[in-house]
């Protein structure tokens, strides 16, 4: 694959053996056999102060009024500078023409609301901008006197949110304090990934709090944060 896989949501895995350094972990160490595992899905963080936007020479990645970090595929010339400057490295590039454009039967398979990927163009998670726009259009149609009725909380369901069986992903308008997402973000265990870089990512995470029975705790030795 040579770092060219095209998924937009990377699942990061981390392992904790409770040991501090690599020198402490000889291969036969029994603690290595059963480390505590963590994982974290990392899509585009949709940064407020996005490092990628500042370096694109042609303005192919820009901010929308709603705060999305939009990717304009047909403006992208493929310098890959945005990816280099992305601290999360969540952008994906079409190094070659990965998509089969010729086979007719495949054309029916594709989502008509999403741009077909083409060679030399950068891609990333869009927060499912096509679903956002569908809901916005519906809200405008159902509004009165030409005004939108407003998008209800939970009305927009992103693909990852829809697919997640444990409902760990929540999407909504963070500007409205009564929304689900705002309430979750108000919790103390809410944190930014690499927050010290001041990219101000809009995707935030909730720290997992674990409190297992001591006999079942396994290799976990430290207090959960």
């Amino acid at each position: 694959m040579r770092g060219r896989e095209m998924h937009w949501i990377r699942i990061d895995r981390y392992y904790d053996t409770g040991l501090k350094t690599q020198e402490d972990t000889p291969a036969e160490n029994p603690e290595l056999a059963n480390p505590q595992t963590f994982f974290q899905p990392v899509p585009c963080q949709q940064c407020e102060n996005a490092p990628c936007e500042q370096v694109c020479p042609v303005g192919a990645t820009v901010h929308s009024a709603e705060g999305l970090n939009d990717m304009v595929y047909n403006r992208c010339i493929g310098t890959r500078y945005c990816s280099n400057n992305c601290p999360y490295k969540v952008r994906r590039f079409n190094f070659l023409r990965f998509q089969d454009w010729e086979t007719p039967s495949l054309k029916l398979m594709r989502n008509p609301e999403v741009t077909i990927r083409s060679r030399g163009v950068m891609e990333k998670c869009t927060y499912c901008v096509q679903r956002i726009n569908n809901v916005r259009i519906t809200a405008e149609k159902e509004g009165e006197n030409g005004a939108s009725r407003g998008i209800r909380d939970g009305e927009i369901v992103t693909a990852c949110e829809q697919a997640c069986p444990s409902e760990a992903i929540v999407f909504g308008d963070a500007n409205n304090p009564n929304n689900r997402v705002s309430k979750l973000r108000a919790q103390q265990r809410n944190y930014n990934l690499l927050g010290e870089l001041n990219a101000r990512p809009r995707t935030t995470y909730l720290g997992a709090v674990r409190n297992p029975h001591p006999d079942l705790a396994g290799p976990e030795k430290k207090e959960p944060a």
Partner: protein
Amino acid sequence: MSAGDTHVNSPEIQRLARVIEPGHSYATVTDKIASIVLTRPTSLGWLAGFSIAFTLMMVLMGSIAWLVTKGVGIWGINIPIGWGFAIVNFVWWIGIGHAGTLISAILFLLNQKWRTSINRFAEAMTLFAVACAGIFPLIHTGRPWMAYYMFPYPSTMGIWPQFRSPLIWDVFAVSTYGTVSALFWFVGLIPDLATLRDRATNKAAQIIYGMLAMGWRGSARHWHRYQSAYLLLAGLATPLVLSVHSVISFDFSIAIVPGWHTTVFPPYFVAGAIYSGFAMVLTIAIPLRKAYDLEDFITMRHLENMAKVMLATGLIVAYGYFFEFFMSLYSGNKFDVFLVQQRLHGPYSSYYYALILCNILTPQVLWFQKMRTNVAVLFVMSLVINVGMWLERFVIVVISLTRDFMPSAWGRYQPTFWDWSTFIGTLGLFVSLLFLFVRALPAISIAEMRELVHTSEDHE
């Protein structure tokens, strides 16, 4: 002039101080330089050298054709290493060009007589290096046919380039640099082109040189205007020596990647550019003076002075390396500290040690005059520094990207055949252009060398 002190009578000192060997008159200078172009038969060596270089240039053409057909995926770049050989080569070539501009513009303004015999081919080297460099930003994009989006043209879409991006600054810096260098070079050539026009016996040569000479008759009025124009162009080119590579370094220092985000980059890149540029001038000058018996004009003083410039700029570069490390450690930023550890102990540490060996340790032999006046040592040293400066860019551009913030997104870089063929192909393009230049244009400025004859006779 080094005259005025007591050691000036020593024959050895005098030999090393000459910018032109004694015994030359206006006629011999003109004959010697013009004959390379006009009367000497094309030698077998030239043909052999040009054939090799031309073959490599065709490798470049083939590589670019395959790149456009398939996409940049034929190279070793990936996510997270979005920039590979293309950007390394771009920075390296642009850097090489800087010595030519320094010699022709800054040393001219400083009235350094030793620049005279090397400025013409050093400027040609600048132009050809910029030509090689200019290929890379274009072809490294995913869609090179859309690269014109980077120019601020009146678009019907009403979209401008994104002026906060250093890549747009590059577009302006490099295009200005190319334009000014070409103008400066051409203006300097006009009196010599007229000399060639007057001396050519071949009708076609007379017409071509005649058109290029733009009606030069050598009147006092011509000379007066020519000298004002040349001075003005030297003034215009001077800031470019500092600005162009500073702007190139912004590509990295503006970004947030550890190993790129460093304020020392602009001065350190400029010093590195001049360092590698003088190395390249030596790489060209030493075979050139040998092949065309130009030891009278490109004297030991020239070679020694260039070696001194390399030593000085090499020390500035060493200072840059030191402070890059010091500031990373002093900052206490864990990513920067980690970068230092990676440079010294990471999977690519051998490149870093090779770079230190080539750029800092080996050139210290230039402290000794014996070494600075040994042509073989200088030639080897110039090649070592060229390699070292290429490694420097490789370490900065590629290795910084392999391990940045998130361990889950770390990667490795492996150049492919096409990476190498494109790089070697630009070497072929560069050398081909140099061969053509030496054969078709005076490699040393005839008009300016005539001025030196006058001063050297006064002196003797």
